[in-house]
């Protein structure tokens, strides 16, 4: 099994593991950010270039460093490889550049965007972005498009990570959702304005790292940090039925998959659970969802652990 050292931490991983996944096995803040890679998809990654790392030693056999920064999400580790992420000034510089590129045509409309608070691009910019913009020109804009009755595409916000494209490729047999045009005119589309006829199409919303694909049953209902995410399950014959319900008082405002710390869902949930199950009676609530400290969603969110042993009053 190959051994790889990332920012000075060494780990032994299975043959074929990518640098990014090796870093995730170590954990902590040496894990490169990933805006396009999604481990739950068969095909993804390589596109956004936020996960670039420096390979200072190729392997035990061939210790030469790699000439360019490499995408850690799609580069497998070799035995003896040494990788710099946070410790490499080159990487930090390139990543700052990538974030800037991702933002020049992004509308930065976080105040009116439903994704705000749980947006990967927001987090990335917070960590690696600059406080001002050097881009003076007009940004590219698109009209909003409905993809079926429940999903809205706001292409202006899209960073072309291809996650939704790969998701739909995976759940459908034919190509129904893809990229039209090229370069910075590229747009996601279901040629033309079609809905995606599939019970799992709603997952494109969960995989979208920004607010380009949003849930129309939830749009503009509430800021996510005013809601309480609860782990819940229901009996469903299409999917596992294991989801997160986002509640305000007794009301369910929206239903999503269970995302981990890297923003990846545990299972794809079906459209019925996601869009048509806002009735609390349908769900068995398991308890509050764990929210990372420091996440804005944590505000007003109470997590009780059994050892807290709090008794109901009154």
């Amino acid at each position: 099994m190959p051994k790889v050292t990332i920012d000075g931490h060494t780990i032994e991983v299975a043959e074929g593991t990518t640098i990014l996944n090796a870093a995730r096995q170590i954990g902590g803040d040496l894990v490169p950010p990933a805006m396009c890679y999604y481990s739950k998809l068969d095909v993804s990654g390589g596109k956004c270039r936020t996960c670039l790392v420096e390979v200072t030693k190729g392997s035990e056999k061939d210790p030469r460093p790699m000439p360019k920064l490499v995408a850690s999400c799609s580069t497998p580790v070799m035995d003896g490889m040494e990788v710099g992420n946070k410790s490499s000034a080159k990487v930090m510089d390139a990543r700052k550049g990538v974030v800037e590129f991702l933002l020049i045509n992004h509308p930065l409309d976080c105040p009116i965007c439903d994704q705000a608070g749980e947006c990967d691009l927001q987090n990335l910019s917070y960590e690696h972005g600059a406080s001002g913009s050097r881009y003076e020109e007009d940004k590219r804009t698109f009209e909003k498009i409905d993809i079926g009755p429940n999903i809205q595409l706001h292409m202006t916000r899209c960073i072309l990570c291809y996650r939704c494209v790969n998701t739909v490729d995976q759940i459908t047999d034919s190509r129904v959702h893809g990229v039209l045009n090229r370069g910075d005119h590229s747009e996601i589309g279901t040629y033309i304005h079609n809905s995606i006829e599939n019970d799992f199409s709603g997952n494109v919303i969960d995989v979208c790292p920004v607010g380009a694909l949003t849930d129309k049953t939830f749009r503009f209902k509430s800021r996510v940090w005013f809601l309480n995410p609860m782990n819940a399950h229901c009996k469903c014959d299409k999917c596992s039925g294991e989801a997160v319900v986002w509640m305000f008082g007794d009301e369910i405002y929206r239903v999503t998959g269970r995302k981990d710390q890297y923003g990846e869902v545990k299972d794809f949930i079906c459209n019925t659970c996601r869009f048509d199950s806002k009735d609390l009676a349908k769900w068995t609530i398991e308890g509050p969802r764990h929210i990372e400290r420091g996440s804005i969603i944590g505000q007003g969110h109470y997590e009780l652990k059994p050892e807290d042993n709090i008794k109901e009053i009154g």
Partner: protein
Amino acid sequence: MGRKILLEKINVENIHTYDVYRKEGGYEAVEKALKKMTPDEVVEEVKKSGLRGRGGAGFPAGMKWSFIAKPEGVPRYLLCNADESEPGTFKDRYLMEKNPHLLIEGMILSSYALGCNTSYIYIRGEFMWILRILEKAIAEAYTNGWLGKNIKGSGYNLDLYVTPGAGAYICGEETALIESLEGKRGNPRMKPPFPAIKGLWQCPSVVNNVETLASVVSIVNNGGDEYAKIGIGRSTGTKLISACGNISKPGVYEIELGLSVEEFLYSDEYCGGIKDGKRLKACVPGGSSVPILPHYLVTKTSAGEQRLMSYESLADGGFATGSMLGSGGFIVFDEDQCIVRNTWNFTRFYHHESCGQCSPCREGTGWMEKVLHRIENGHGHKHDIDLLWDVQRKIEGNTICPLGDAAAWPVAAAIRHFREEFEWHINEPVKCLEKNYGLVKEPVLAI
């Protein structure tokens, strides 16, 4: 007179027809290879010849061929890259239009060497008439038994197809070409795996330029050693150069590698000097993707040595004072040309042609174009030059395919060698607009 290999017969009347081509010694190389040589021997000859890829990167062809994986029971493919879309490069189209059988013969030989039974010519979509010429020539080759089953009783089978692209420069990148051939959107693939392991339909494939494949004919006919005698050092053989810009005689020339740039540029046999007796200002020696050279670095290297038309000599001095032979698109600028305008024009091309997969190239090319447009049109700021430099620096090396580099290098080189001209555009917007366009009489306020 330099030796001609590829263009030797180009002016023979009706050389595009099978009968004339055959009469002029055509298909003798195939006869020789099929009768007397094993596939490995053909590869060996190509290795000996030192032939390097003519598509831009200059990777040794024989070496590329020897990398192809040969798993049992899996077909292999030879793909000819005829997507020629680089601004300034127009050599392949000339060869295919005039002498299509030379390419076909080269492809039969190369396919035989690689053990491919199906091969494709991926041709730029705008070259529809050349596609028809090629199809006609292929039909003739089938009729005369050079393609199809059991070629000339050798037991070797080969089918050859021509497929047009749909007008995208990026489909010249080898993995984008493969995606496009498969009927998908022409997005370059992540490498590894390289095409030699997993190419067309996940089978081992080799992608070669038109000129590379056409050169194999003479290598098989006369032997690799003979070919290697032409040229200089590791730049063996002859190369097609498409010369354009402000020269007296633009056109496609075949040169022996190692010819001096001075002779190529000024002799009457080739470019015939700068047009209308003007002075040389700059030269892009290898197609729009390579760094521009200012006049004092065109015929001489920074060390004062003579600059030669070869892979090594043109690259002498690295990017600081050198450039690249690239695909042989030789673009010459006279004293009246505006480098900022030209750089903007190139960048506009890359902006338009970026596939849009990876963020640095997708966003960076557009950004550079906008900044250059601003400078060129009298609205530049002093900090724009540094901004451009920083943007190109952050694209280069951080992308999936080399298009990002190709977009960054010309901008970097233009700033490196012509910074004063950029500054002049910013400091004297009115004068610069007057000089370039004669449009502005009233002062415009730079924003």
